[in-house]
């Protein structure tokens, strides 16, 4: 394991475009390539970032009736978009309805496993959180029932059960990356990332 170094913190901004998510995504990808800058963009419909309720998120994700697209961008890209806002709207019709700083983000998660191997893997992931992220309200319970070892048909009970849940908070970019890492662990259920904006 390489020693962790504390990365320089950068600011992130939530921008809400009025337009279809696919169009917004295509436009931003083009803008970033065209600008030649290193940019970070997270799309809420791809990375599970909460906004405006579940129905709107679902609509955004499947592209039906979606007229808005929420994106999270780094400070440089934010400044670029802010500078070009009027031109973007004029040339592409993609208006910007919100543009605000993301102060922090948090995400609830829970997991349930029935084999110590998977519990160990998940605990290793959680114990190796990036420095910038914090865990709070974490509970972890393991139950063992030696009588329930083996295969059952009518009285299924697991000889090993573990449950855990908690909330992870910190910078949105680190949290998005951590949430992506969690996707490799199907037994972890992650909620959408909540943004603290202002």
């Amino acid at each position, binding site marked *: 394991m390489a020693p962790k170094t504390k990365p320089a913190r950068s600011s992130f901004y939530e921008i809400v475009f009025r337009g279809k998510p696919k169009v917004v995504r295509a436009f931003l990808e083009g803008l970033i390539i065209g600008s030649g800058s290193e940019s970070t963009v997270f799309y809420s419909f791809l990375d599970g970032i909460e906004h405006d309720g579940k129905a709107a998120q679902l609509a955004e994700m499947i592209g039906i009736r979606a007229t808005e697209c929420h994106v999270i961008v780094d400070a440089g890209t934010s400044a670029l978009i802010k500078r070009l806002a009027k031109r973007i709207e004029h040339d592409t019709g993609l208006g910007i309805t919100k543009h605000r700083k993301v102060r922090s983000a948090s995400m609830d998660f829970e997991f349930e*496993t*029935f084999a110590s191997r998977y519990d160990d893997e998940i605990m290793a992931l959680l114990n190796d959180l990036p420095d910038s992220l914090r865990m709070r309200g974490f509970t972890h319970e393991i139950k063992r*029932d030696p009588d*329930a070892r*083996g*295969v*059952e048909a009518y*009285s*299924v009970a697991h000889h090993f059960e573990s449950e855990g849940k908690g909330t992870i908070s910190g910078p949105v970019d680190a949290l998005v990356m951590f949430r992506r890492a969690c996707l490799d662990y*199907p037994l972890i259920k992650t909620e959408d990332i909540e943004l603290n904006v202002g």
Partner: protein
Amino acid sequence: MACSPFCTHVRILLLLVVCGTLACGLNAGAARAQDHGTAQDTEQIHATSADQGGDAHAVEDAHAVDGAHAGDDAHAGDDAHGDGHGDGHGDGHGGGHGASLTGGLPLWTAIPFVGILLSIALGPLIAPHFWHQHFPKISALWALAFAVPFLIWNPAEAVQEILHIYLLDYVPFIILLWGLFTISGGIYVGGSLRGKPVVNVALLAIGTLLASLIGTTGAAMVLVRPLLRANDWRRNKVHLIIFFIFLVANIGGSLTPLGDPPLFLGFLHGVPFFWVTTALLPHMLVAVVFVLAIFFVLDTILYRRETNEPEADPDAGGIKIEGLHNILFLLGVMGAVIMSGSLKLPGVTVYTGGSHDVIVPWQNWLKDIIIILMGVLSLRTTAKVLREKNGFSWFPIQEVAYLFAGIFMTIIPALAILKAGSAGALAGLTEAVHGPMRFFWATGILSSFLDNAPTYLTFFNSALGGLGQPESMVAPMLGYGEAAARNVGFIADLQAISAGAVFMGAMTYIGNAPNFMVKAIAEEAGIPMPSFFGFLVKWSIPVLIPVFIIVTLIFFL
């Protein structure tokens, strides 16, 4: 709950010995206490002997059924009690539950039956660890709740009914499941397969076919781990297990009495062995083709989303099956079961103290001995390591033995009431549920939430009760035997009941025993299986209900 193999065998053997001893002791006592010289008894004994040789009664009954409706013929069935399965199945007792019990039992006597089925359904969901530790006691409590009052109320009839259902239903049922489970547990499917859509469809199709040969539990046990291994690299695996439950653990078992416990109970109650093979093949094919097609589309979509497919292993040897010699033992079991349905040998009278004799035909003993022999040979000739690799243990068979001891005890009044048809306390049910469509959905919906074996038996008897026919008429009504009196209505009803019980066991985790077993194995392999209601709402209702509606439209309207 752990019990050594020896301990398990001893328990099962003890159960058999206790049944036999009880039978002999009670038989002797009853012989002293009762006068068997009445004309009525003499007639019954004659009827038994005649039926075992292929009787004339059956022919008369066959004509009586021609009209296919109960009404006036309702008592023809009762008259044939003690006729010993004139259909050639020969359990020596036939519809023997009927004469003394039918019509006389109030509905509340079936409360223990409902109680044990609900306990089996809800126990693992509400309190899994409590249920895991105490289910034998709970089963025994429900059994005693019926047996004790019954024995006090009418000892002679009670002993007769209990012996009948244990010796002619329970013991053969357990022995068959034990044999299939033991033998299939010795077949190990190993090697390295890559979980791609075509491979997965092939695995499910093989499992579906295998289920009818070695039982749904055996097929599930043999194939679930190869499926998991082949798809170990994939992120999206839940659907594999769901469709495995649909096809291998349920629908696939519809083609022989070995496939699924309800069908074996049907066999024990007079349905010829190969009847389901021909009668359910079209239904099964339609259901399997649709479910497999849905699976293939879904698996292809999810496969394309996978991002971490490993490189092809040049040393991978494909699939490798060990313990294949166990197929011979499986054929032995199948042969024994078919033989028992074909031979007509005299029986051993184990009890004469009730209104009917309890006679166990020699072909039944022979069948059970052969199955036990096949199981023992499998144990002796198969390397233990193969069973270990299959995660084999005796616990599932112990579960079946304990729980079905309770189910078979408590089902006695339910069957008697249903057999009474319009004269019984459930006349409303018998009248409301008629015709293939209603039988399919009523049997199916109940099989979704209660164990499908007793549910099948309940509706099987309801169909017979509705026609006023004894079990001895089952084979003739299905078009078998010299006294065949093909009854198209009954055939359609029985197809619907069989398909409903087998297919819709897939609707929930509690519909059929292997469902829960597969779910648990998958969870321990790190697959986030849906909850009880998640399974129902996200998977079985959207996938299976449309398929079952298609099956209904094609076959049951």
